[in-house]
């Protein structure tokens, strides 16, 4: 446990670094470039777990565990809650407000990375003492001695910060209802008085194979009616269009009918001897 090497690490740690480091970078790239917020959150959680392993490898045993408990346990779950509130599939808009901003941002990022990594490369980092001496009395004991000794004032301030954050979150998300909620009777009266749409709203999904709530029902002329889908889904833009799927379904149905009637799908059916194809086939099958 206390064999954190001085200048070069063990081969095991090197192998661990190269494998898990790749995973961490891939997770970070996934966080940035995956389209959906849920996928980003999951990639970030992966990166954070890898970082926890790195903390453990660097002799920060307490912080490694805290990283898993606090970051992947609490903070990422909070992120997932908010993603759920805001809408899971709400994708990023791809319209650029400032023209060329994306490429400029990537260029800036690249330049920043080159500067940062070049700076580290130019620094003369020759002394690596390792944590063997500092961790000799136990990592947690050493941290506690510092936290409640040298840094006790900062620790107290942290308490004030956490209380402020909790109160702030409550103030920001609390909504005071200033007026009485309307009863069902009042809502009905209002609807009649307005006279725009008096009957109940039509039900979604009148396709034969889809009665899901996110599929719009069809008007008599075949166009989907957005009125049939719940207002929440309409606002999020999550109405599912199944027209292409319906065509595929029809094609599958036709193919199955062809197989059943032993027709060649490549050959278009042609009427023979004046009668319909199906009829003559059925007669042949009977004979």
């Amino acid at each position, binding site marked *: 446990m206390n064999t*954190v090497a001085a*200048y*070069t*690490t063990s081969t095991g740690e*090197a192998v661990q*670094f190269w494998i898990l480091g790749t995973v961490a*970078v891939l997770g*970070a790239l996934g*966080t*940035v470039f995956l389209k959906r*917020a849920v996928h*980003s*959150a999951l990639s*970030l959680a992966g*990166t954070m777990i890898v*970082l926890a392993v*790195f*903390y453990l490898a*660097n002799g*920060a045993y*307490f*912080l490694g565990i*805290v*990283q898993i408990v*606090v*970051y992947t346990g*609490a*903070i990422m779950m909070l*992120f997932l809650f*908010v*993603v759920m*509130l*805001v809408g899971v599939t709400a994708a*990023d*808009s791809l319209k650029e407000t400032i023209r060329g901003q*994306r490429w400029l*941002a990537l260029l*800036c*990022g*690249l330049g*920043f*990375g080159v500067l*940062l*990594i070049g700076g*580290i490369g130019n620094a003369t*980092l020759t002394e*690596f003492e*390792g944590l063997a001496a*500092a961790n000799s009395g136990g990592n947690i004991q050493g*941290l506690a001695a*510092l936290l409640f000794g040298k*840094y006790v004032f*900062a620790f107290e301030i*942290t308490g004030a*910060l*956490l209380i402020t*954050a909790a109160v*702030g*979150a409550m103030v*920001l998300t609390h909504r005071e209802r200033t007026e009485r909620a309307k009863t069902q009777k009042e809502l009905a009266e209002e609807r009649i008085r307005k006279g725009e749409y008096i009957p109940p709203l039509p039900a979604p999904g009148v396709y034969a194979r889809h009665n899901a709530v996110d599929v719009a029902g069809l008007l008599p002329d075949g166009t989907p009616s957005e009125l049939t889908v719940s207002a929440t889904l309409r606002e999020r833009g999550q109405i599912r269009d199944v027209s292409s799927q319906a065509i595929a379904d029809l094609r599958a149905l036709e193919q199955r009918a062809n197989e059943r009637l032993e027709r060649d799908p490549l050959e278009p059916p042609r009427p023979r001897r004046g009668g319909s194809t199906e009829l003559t086939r059925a007669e042949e099958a009977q004979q």
Partner: protein
Amino acid sequence: MNPVNYLYLAALLFTIGATGVLVRRNAIVVFMCIELMLNACNLSLIAFSRMHGNLDGQIIAFFTMVVAAAEVVVGLAIIVSLFRTRHSASVDDARLMKL
């Protein structure tokens, strides 16, 4: 392997996070990228702690975690209230102060 590689990894992760903040529009993803940058800083602090052979770097990383937790709570509350009023979590939509 030289332990300086941990610093290079932290720099790389920080760069990816910073690029993400610039590129993405969804406020939640921008926030996640900020968390990524904070984590990269923590990794470098812990590597520094090992370099100098004392635990002060780990204490600072610990404080960073506490501040990050408080920041996440307030930031997500802001995003939720923004979504309630604007019905969108895009950072481009919040521009009432723009002339």
